[in-house]
């Protein structure tokens, strides 16, 4: 025992001595004092993480792109027939807005997307609950939805036109299908994944079936539902664009389709900007609601 202690202390002394020796050498070689042997001085490690985020950093890229676009247009590097200048697009936007074309088309498009989304959302939730909470519901619904999922919804357009005519109904139906599938799938998966330990807890605490669903099943499935909701929102815009550009007589997509025929690239760009705003606003809204509703999760991520 004593021997081993002696050995250790001897080794440590030796290593200290050699370290000091090395430090001395460095100092003399460099000619400047180096804080190698200085006691208590801790040098910070090189940081490998990207560090703190810049303010409004997400906007930097888009703004730069806009500036490049403006600069290229101002110096006439871009063919105005193909890519009109940003201010031309703005002017066209204002003109279309004031003459009433744009508000009408936006309203028509919003109504379609909104109606389809509302139906899809309701159907997605209702089917997921029915299938997730009862074995009979699962047997009836789950396989059917999985089958529906395997068929690309936009491939149903010809059939739906034959069934429902080329009016609003078929457009809303297609959007509803595009929306309900991701909402159903994610909500159902979340319901099926409810921790059985919580089910046991509910039994011990004597919860009624209704309170069990309200206090354990629904909150437990909400994170999955929100994943589906965001996919559904994106899907509703996607469906809208496709539907309005191939067979519509009004709406934002129709406006763009007409502009293509007359070679009005500025009008097409106005339409794209509006679609972009729709997508951004709706996604932000869903994210905002998600943050509010799932506030208990924030403590997990800090």
């Amino acid at each position, binding site marked *: 025992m004593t021997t081993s202690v002696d050995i250790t202390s001897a080794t440590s002394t030796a290593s200290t001595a050699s370290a000091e020796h090395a430090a001395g050498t460095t100092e003399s070689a460099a000619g400047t004092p180096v804080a190698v042997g200085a006691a208590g001085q801790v040098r910070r490690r090189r940081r490998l993480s990207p560090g703190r985020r810049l303010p409004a950093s997400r906007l930097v890229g888009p703004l730069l792109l806009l500036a490049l676009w403006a600069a290229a247009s101002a110096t006439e590097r871009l063919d105005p027939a193909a890519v009109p200048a940003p201010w031309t697009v703005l002017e066209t936007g204002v003109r279309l807005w004031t003459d009433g074309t744009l508000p009408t088309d936006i309203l028509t498009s919003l109504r379609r997307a909104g109606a389809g989304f509302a139906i899809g959302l309701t159907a997605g939730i209702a089917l997921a609950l029915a299938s997730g909470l009862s074995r009979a519901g699962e047997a009836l619904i789950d396989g059917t939805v999985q089958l529906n999922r395997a068929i690309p919804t936009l491939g149903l357009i010809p059939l739906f036109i034959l069934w429902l005519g080329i009016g609003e109904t078929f457009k809303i139906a297609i959007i509803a299908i595009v929306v309900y599938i991701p909402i159903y799938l994610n909500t159902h998966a979340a319901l099926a994944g409810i921790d059985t*330990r*919580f089910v*046991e*807890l*509910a*039994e*011990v*605490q*004597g*919860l009624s079936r209704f*309170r069990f669903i309200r*206090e*354990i099943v629904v*909150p*437990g499935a*909400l994170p999955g539902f929100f994943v589906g909701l965001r996919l559904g929102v994106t899907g509703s815009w996607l469906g809208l664009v496709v539907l309005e550009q191939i067979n519509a007589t009004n709406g934002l997509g129709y406006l763009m389709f007409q502009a293509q025929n007359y070679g009005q690239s500025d009008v097409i760009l106005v339409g794209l900007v509006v679609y972009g705003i729709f997508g951004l606003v709706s996604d932000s809204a869903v994210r905002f609601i998600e943050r509010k509703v*799932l506030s*208990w*999760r924030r*403590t*997990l991520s800090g």
Partner: protein
Amino acid sequence: MATHTERLTATGAAATTTAERTAVRLRGLTRSFEGRAVLDGIDLDIPAGQFVALLGHSGSGKSTLLRAVAGLDHEVAGSGGLTAPQRVSVVFQDSRLLPWRRVLDNVLLGTEGEEKGRAALAEVGLKGRERAWPNELSGGEAQRAALARSLVREPELLLADEPFGALDALTRIRMHALLRELWERHRPSVLLVTHDVDEAIVLADRVLVLEHGRLGLDLAIDRPHPRSYRDPLLGEYRERLLAALGVTEDPEGAVEAGLPAGAPLGAPVGPTVGAELSRDRKGPPVTSKDHR
């Protein structure tokens, strides 16, 4: 205290007929998984207000017994008579707090009365944490909250399935004191399932050993509370319990030497060589002096 009185008056009429009211009564309780009997004809009476610990190796069926009493064994084949009180609370090994409800709302799950919830939280030392989220609590605090949740229902029977098994040793000692203190104030019957001999001895007034689906030793622990882990007289109980669990194969061997009276805090009874041997040497079950 209020709870205690309330319960006594509510059951006062029944209590006059029998001197010692029975909270839990098991008669020939049998439970089996895939044809293998995990509980093999258990007869057990737990008088109202008694603190019972149920010891056993892992796989001895002690959790199955607890789940049967709790009424949680839906798809388990079995037979036998089983009576338990109306108000039963269960504390699990994990705190099982719902992460999307604040601590107070977790305590009140399935019941009403915010004031009762606050009082229960204060009783377990979590005053001021009512608005906290469960994932902001430490393991010990979460288990305290789980105790508060079980208390708020004013249980006649408290079932605890290795409630301190996931806690560190120091927290566990504090929780032992808390549980005993809560029991003294509210006097529910307690069935504490554990594999920790010292935990059983320090907390319970009666220790049962479950082996191979049958109750073996039924031992009353007649020592005043609060008990010290270092009480040498508890060593005798420990030895008898360890013998019943088959851990005293060699009196001079490592197992015995590793468990001197009062030394290890919360020494778990793991699978040992002795367990295998005791099966062959099993004599008539030892019965304690004062339990029928």
